[in-house]
């Protein structure tokens, strides 16, 4: 079931209503059933798969406590099963294709069976969530959950099941175990997040997605036309993924749960590293805690090792997004950006100290714009799956474009900008607010008077500006 389907609009109010009528013991069982229904509505087999992942990780985590002497075996078993399942469903075809290509390039005639495997929705998200839990139990950072219902709900909680945020056991599990309470404040925030999420998806993401789709459908986009399409895709992917998180957080709030934030206005990032602290934050923190730090992180002495750790983490991040070379390239590109950023920051540290105070804001603006441009180059790699086409695009020069196409590109750029305006305005207001009074929780202090106005404006916006051609969430494919 997709958030932007009519089924979800019927499903959510029913779930919320029944959920609050039930006593506390029945609530988790009901939520678990609702979550499995949510997933099985897409395909019944997906339910069986998630049940397997749940059972294996549940048993292994309990095994670690009851048989501490062989807890490493339990950990390895859980990891092998979870990662094996992910590898089979997500990466097997990619791996076999590349083996076949390599062998044929080497002149060895070789044919492999074609694997027609359907990618289970949300597999990357719930697998990472399960792995994190099992590792935390192994490390002794979290107590294993003895109640299978609670644990199954932790893995399959429907608002964040398909595209995150990837929750940690330390954050979500206590909420599952305790009695939930909902305050008017949570209802307000939940409804606002839902409205804002649907606005971002139906208005911003779907409209800019149409522009990006058309540009990337052309056989011969000129330089400017191509980059106007990349800009549109950059806005689309942000609005699309952010909207999913907002709808997930909004739905969870109505049920009395608080999910983690996944975005913090990433297009206002002032460096590539800052971008990753703001974009898909739960994945970034996951990779940091379970890949980067175990590799040694930045504590290793050798600068080569430090660089290698960063590159491994980002390449894995790219590979997590999809079984395709362009995603690996995209991850590697961001790894290089982060490395360059570190080198430049060290080199320019003395200059920064000499910078007069009046120049702080212009320099900040330049940094933000530069980061935004670099991130957009990355989006080109993300969007174009065919490597040959990607390199053709990267070779385009401004002089290869016709005047006619330039004007069209200008028009598409402005159109994207108009649709993206609410996101940028939201960012500006947010940072202005932080600048004035320090960080606060989103929407917490918006006056009651403004909330209905905002909700009404967003609803009218959805009704009047929604794209005539709605699309599925981009991150569904990951």
């Amino acid at each position, binding site marked *: 079931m997709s958030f932007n*389907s*009519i*089924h979800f*609009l019927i499903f959510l109010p029913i779930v919320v209503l029944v959920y609050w009528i039930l006593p506390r013991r029945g609530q988790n069982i009901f939520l678990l059933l609702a979550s499995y229904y949510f997933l099985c509505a897409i395909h019944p087999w997906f339910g069986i798969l998630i049940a397997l992942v749940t059972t294996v990780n549940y048993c292994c985590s309990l095994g670690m406590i009851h048989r501490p002497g062989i807890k490493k075996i339990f950990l390895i078993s859980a990891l092998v099963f979870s990662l094996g399942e992910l590898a089979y469903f997500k990466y097997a075809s990619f791996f076999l294709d590349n083996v076949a290509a390599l062998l044929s390039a080497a002149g060895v005639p070789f044919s492999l069976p074609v694997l027609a495997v359907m990618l289970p929705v949300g597999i990357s998200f719930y697998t990472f969530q399960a792995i994190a839990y099992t590792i935390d139990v192994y490390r002794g950072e979290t107590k294993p959950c003895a109640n299978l219902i609670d644990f199954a709900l932790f893995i399959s909680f429907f608002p964040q099941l398909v595209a995150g945020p990837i929750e940690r056991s330390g954050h979500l599990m206590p909420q599952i175990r305790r009695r939930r309470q909902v*305050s*008017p*404040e949570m*209802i*307000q925030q939940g*409804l606002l997040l839902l409205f804002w999420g649907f606005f971002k998806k139906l208005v911003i993401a779907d409209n800019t997605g149409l522009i990006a789709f*058309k540009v990337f*459908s*052309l*056989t*011969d986009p000129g330089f400017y036309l191509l980059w106007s399409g990349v800009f549109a895709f950059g806005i689309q992917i942000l609005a699309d993924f952010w909207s999913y998180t907002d709808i997930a957080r909004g739905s969870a709030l109505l049920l009395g749960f608080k999910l983690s934030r996944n975005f913090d206005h990433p297009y206002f990032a002032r460096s590539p590293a800052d971008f990753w602290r703001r974009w898909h934050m739960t994945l970034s923190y996951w990779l940091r805690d379970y890949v980067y730090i175990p590799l040694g992180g930045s504590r290793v002495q050798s600068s080569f090792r430090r660089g290698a750790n960063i590159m491994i983490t980002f390449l894995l991040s790219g590979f997590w997004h999809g079984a395709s070379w362009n995603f690996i390239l995209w991850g590697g590109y961001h790894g290089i950006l982060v490395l360059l950023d570190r080198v430049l920051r060290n080199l320019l540290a003395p200059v920064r100290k000499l910078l007069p105070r009046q120049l702080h804001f212009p320099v900040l603006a330049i940094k933000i714009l530069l980061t935004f441009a670099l991130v957009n180059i990355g989006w080109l790699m993300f969007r174009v799956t065919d490597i040959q086409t990607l390199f053709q695009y990267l070779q385009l020069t401004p002089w290869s474009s016709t005047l*006619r*196409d330039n*004007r*069209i590109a*200008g*028009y*598409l*750029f*402005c*159109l994207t*900008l*108009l*649709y993206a305006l609410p996101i940028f305005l939201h960012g500006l207001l947010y940072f202005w*607010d932080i600048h*004035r*009074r320090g960080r*606060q929780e989103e929407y*917490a*202090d918006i*006056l*009651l*008077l*403004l*909330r*209905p*106005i905002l*909700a*009404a404006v967003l*609803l*009218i916006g959805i*009704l*009047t*500006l*929604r794209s*005539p051609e*709605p699309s599925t969430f981009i991150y569904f494919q990951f």
Partner: protein
Amino acid sequence: MSQSCPRKLFLSNPETKPKYMGKISLFFTLFSRWKTGKWFLLSAILMLLFCLFAPDIILHRIVSPRADFSRNGWWMLFYAPSHPVGVESYEVFLPAGEIVALNPDFKQARGYLFWDVPVTGPYCFKLETDDYGTLSVDGKIIATMTPDHPGKQRIDAWAHLTKGLHLFQIRMRKETGGGGFSVGFMTPPMMNSRILAGDDTAVPALGSLDFWWWVMAVAGYGLIPAWVFASFCTLSLALPLSLQNHPVSVPAAIAVALVPALFIPVTVQREPYIGTMVQQKLEAEKPDFVFIGNSMLWSRIDDDYLGQLLGGKKVHSIVNFGGLSAVHYLAFKYLLYPADIHPKRVFIFFRGNQFILPRARTDDPFVEKIIQRLTPAPDPLFEQVVHGDSRSMTDVVYDRLLALFPVAAAQAQIRKKIHYLALIPAIFGSTDDNPKKNLLARVNKRFSFAESSFRSEIGTESRRQEADENSYDFYGRVETSFLPNMLELAQKKHLPLAFIRVQERPTKNGAVPDPAELKKYMQDLRAYLEEHGATLYDFTGDPELPLSAYHDGDHIKDQKKYTELFVRRVGDLLQ
């Protein structure tokens, strides 16, 4: 929270008094205290009352009693900011019924006129200008002509008027060269329109009426429905002030805040059904022959002249500009079929393979309005044929939402405005005559399938649809078209049908477009129609229809000549 302001609007975190929010917060602080908030509430209520009652009071008590029926026409105000002799503006009376011309020296014009509407009902007004123009009735804009068109254009707008006096306003702004406008109206059927004129019109004795007009417009009849805004303010203020920390306050406030969406914009509504009026007219006329068609029919047959040629027989045409087979079917089913008349024959004009393309042009906004006028409620067959296999649950729910929130119907208009806004920077420095229009045309061309510039895997569905439109497989498609139902209805009421295929415009070398696959299609169509008791006549290849007989596109230059030709060719069907 200080003791002095116990009625703050914050639900939580009361310590975060908006002192940190700077100047903007001052405005909201006003709302956050009952002491000051109540004055805002009172003001909003007064504004609401004013908006609800002021327009009627102004129209019926101040303006209308001063209508001057001794002069039938427009009270015009011309503006000329760059007039060579320094005249900036002047007011003048212009008799109604004349086309108002705008001298190149004058940039803008505004005019007022009263019309004493004789009968309550839906009226279709047509505004013809060659530049920007709006037509408003009682302060409400009913037609807007944008300046992005070459030469004179016509725009139709419907308004439901009650019997009695109504105030009309025309506004015009000239872009280039000279200009002019005319306002006409027509009652169904959509023929025989006439320029607004006659004894029923009057000029306002209060001169240009600018002041009162704007009061009315602001109060709620016109541009922004201010009463909606006022209701919104009133309720949004009243609810938080009264509910404060109550748990239902926010859902209730959100629900209240959405109330205005039920009414915005008030002008976008379903078009009025014209069937009853047409039926009454047909029953009064009792025509011997009825014609159904679009502009192909309109440019070819002159009703009165045909009547004369047939020795005084009565002819009635039902013309729906832009309509294709779906519209012809609906016109037949809802205008002609229920009328208590028995014409000797019903002629239906068509082009090409349209009878097996039931969905053709049904999603055009202009045609959608025609369809609304032709049907009192959605036609089941139309819904099944046009939307049957493509309407999802979402569409059904969205339709319900649309009925609840008329504002959603403005989607196309608002999208258009956004696209035009995005064009402004993109045409910067352009030397084109009409840069916006040209750029849009270029965009459409660049992203057109016809240009074949798309990757092969893209748009397979759209390509399939394009291929469908070029399909001539009559028997493969006829059962999913409107034709069987139309023939069934005709047989039920014993209405003899005659289908007239018009000849398309010949090429420059005189060749008539008639592809081989269309010939096979026509053979099948003829056989099918004859099998069901209908007749077909094909004008394709007629020697008396050379290229010189055509005006623009497939429209004929001389209506009367064609009418004569029609009598000569299908005389036996006119007996």
